[in-house]
């Protein structure tokens, strides 16, 4: 009896030693992933998690998304309280930089595969001195317009518009026909007006990265004509929006379009997968129309999502294994095709199977890419430029402010705290 007890004790001691030596092998560890992409939950469960777990026995993944608008607040509270997941989906720029500075995210410089990302791809998650990258870039989203092909056929529009004039001529035709709401967009949620309006059509006027960098360096102002012009165009959109667009929320706009009641939907590539699942008609896409025929085109190619490691995770080895996997071409291939519209940030072309996503991606070759103008550095102070841009873009579309007034308010807010480095 005594002998057997001793044996059991010995066995459990050695088992413990084994566990300590090789945790990833001896017992399953579960990594919890924090994300704001709650729309992607089924895709993670059906495609991404099985693919990872197949190649990495012993590590289980638990994808635990929060609603997008609550994500930042919830994540910060969880990190402060020490209850956050092991892997953190990183918002681009300052929100994640702050987490890294607080020591809540670790450096990702030593993750194998980081050399597959260009400096531009890493820009959203790298310190100002460009020395440390703290999240593994995952995907970017592209801005553009999705349209209902049946609607265009019925109204007699042969090809999607290339210039702003053509765009408004088409809108006028759709409005005159009366079957369809020309543009599906509402202003009550405000971010649509800014993200799918202002940031979508703006780069063609401020010339993408040139204008964005000039703004940061203080060589341009938001009151310059190239920064007011997108507001002027937004103001012209108003008559083509649906009845009561002032109280139309984002999901309303999505439904309006997928139910086939609207012709054109200003948006981004993130909409491809849900729309493909819901819309019963053929869809096409076109990039933001340029001001004049022959002008160079620019698209909003926004670094949007990355993965980092919670500095307080209890499974750092497993978390690093997962991050290394997200930096691999295998992940890029699965992710880009499981979530068409989220374009991998890895260098090297990923083959897209979704035709709409393919078309979005093709603009990267003909147009110049830029990130959203308000994201880097300019939204660090009070008032927050991104918030103000939401409010002002919605005001302009609601007709309660002129484009010039909106631009002046934005510049005044920026001037109150932002001193460009010269």
């Amino acid at each position, binding site marked *: 009896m005594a002998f057997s007890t001793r044996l059991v004790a010995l066995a459990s001691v050695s088992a413990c030693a084994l566990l300590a030596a090789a945790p990833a092998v001896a017992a399953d560890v579960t990594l919890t992933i924090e994300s704001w992409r709650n729309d992607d939950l089924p895709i993670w469960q059906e495609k991404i998690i099985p693919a990872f777990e197949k190649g990495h026995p012993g590590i289980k993944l638990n994808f635990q998304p929060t609603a997008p608008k609550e994500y930042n607040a919830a994540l910060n509270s969880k990190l402060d309280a020490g209850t956050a997941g092991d892997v953190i989906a990183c918002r681009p720029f300052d*929100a994640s930089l702050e987490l890294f500075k607080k020591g809540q995210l670790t450096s990702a410089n030593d993750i194998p595969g980081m050399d597959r990302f260009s400096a531009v791809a890493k820009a959203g998650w790298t310190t100002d001195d460009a020395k440390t990258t703290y999240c593994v870039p995952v995907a970017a989203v592209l801005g553009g317009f999705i349209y209902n092909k049946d609607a265009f056929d019925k109204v007699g529009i042969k090809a999607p518009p290339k210039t702003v004039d053509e765009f408004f001529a088409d809108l006028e035709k759709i409005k005159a026909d009366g079957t369809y709401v020309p543009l599906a967009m509402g202003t009550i949620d405000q971010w649509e007006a800014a993200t799918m309006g202002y940031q979508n059509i703006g780069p063609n006027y401020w010339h993408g990265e040139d204008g964005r960098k000039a703004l940061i360096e203080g060589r341009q102002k938001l009151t310059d004509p190239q920064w007011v012009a997108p507001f002027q165009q937004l103001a012209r959109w108003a008559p083509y929006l649906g009845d009561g667009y002032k109280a139309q929320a984002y999901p309303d706009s999505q439904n309006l379009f997928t139910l086939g009641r609207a012709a054109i939907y200003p948006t981004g590539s993130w909409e491809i997968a849900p729309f493909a699942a819901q819309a019963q008609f053929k869809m096409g896409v076109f990039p933001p129309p340029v001001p004049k025929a022959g002008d160079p085109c620019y698209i909003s190619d926004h670094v949007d999502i990355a993965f980092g490691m919670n500095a307080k995770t209890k499974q750092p080895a497993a978390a690093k294994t997962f991050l290394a996997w997200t930096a691999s071409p295998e992940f890029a291939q699965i992710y880009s095709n499981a979530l068409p519209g989220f374009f991998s940030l890895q260098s090297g072309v990923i083959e897209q199977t979704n035709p709409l996503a393919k078309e979005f991606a093709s603009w990267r070759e003909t147009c110049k890419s830029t990130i959203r103008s308000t994201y880097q550095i300019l939204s660090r102070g009070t*008032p927050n430029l991104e918030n103000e841009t939401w409010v002002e873009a919605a005001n302009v579309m609601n007709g309660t402010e002129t484009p010039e007034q909106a631009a002046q308010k934005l510049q005044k807010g920026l001037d109150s705290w932002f001193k460009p480095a010269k």
Partner: protein
Amino acid sequence: MAQVEKLAADLPLLPAAMVGAEALARARRWHILVFLAPALLVYTVIMILPLIDTLRLALFRRVDGVPMFVGLDNFNILFFDPRWSGHFWSALGNNLYFFAFHMLLQNPIGVALAALLSVPRLRGQAFYRTVFFLPTMLSFVIVGFSWKVILSPLWGVAPTLLGAIGLKSWFHPWLGQEATALTTLALISVWQYVGIPMMLIYAALLGIPAEVTEAAELDGVTGLAQFWKIKLPLILPTIGICSILTFVGNFNAFDLIYTVQGALAGPNFSTDILGTFLFRTFFGNQLQLGDPNMGAAIATMMFLIILLGVSLYLFGIQRRMRRYQF
């Protein structure tokens, strides 16, 4: 020996029997501590300590990640730096409007409903009482979402119903217009919470002894006159309690506006009240990072405003209110 304000949590009035047995009560005074202890402990841990910590947090600022004592500077910024004061004063103004709206609409309607419900020969009393009280028990998320859908210009029943009686042109996207958004939200809130004053006042009305109303009837005071001259003065203390509950509730309000309009309380901050301003500041929004210290300063102001309001009521009104004992 009935008290009118059964539900009113105001000054404890010792029943006469106890006063007679004063000596006995003194001997047993340790009971008070024992009975107070559990509530006091729980209340201290989950209310008083966090409150004190909020006040403390409001006096600090994070500089490069290190908390630094700045005295009242955060309040100075809140009141006088145009980048903050604009939002603060507009939120306070909207909050006052929100409160005034409730006082002018919710409480009078509550009193009227209670008066109707307490009519002795009313049929289906229990049914009406339940129906009027039902929205109060619903989650604000459900209320916010339902009204958003009801008032939706695309799929809402509001435009359809107005259209059915030929008044389609009266419909506006009320939640999306600066001029009407806050009023619409206030109406939704009134609809949801009208049950609370109704129930409190209903209970107070039932507490009025039959002898009093019978005596009034003998003197020829009946109907509406009886309500104004006899019943209303008797339920005034309860109306006072309703007002103070409304005041505290409105200055702490946040949930309905957040669910319907989001943290930016649009359009153009027209529905921004202290609660949403606090949330945005404390937790951040999209690219705006949370600032716990400025957030605590706003929370402190909300606390002080509520404290001021409650004190004014307590010392200015409640103490002077006449009570009737039967």
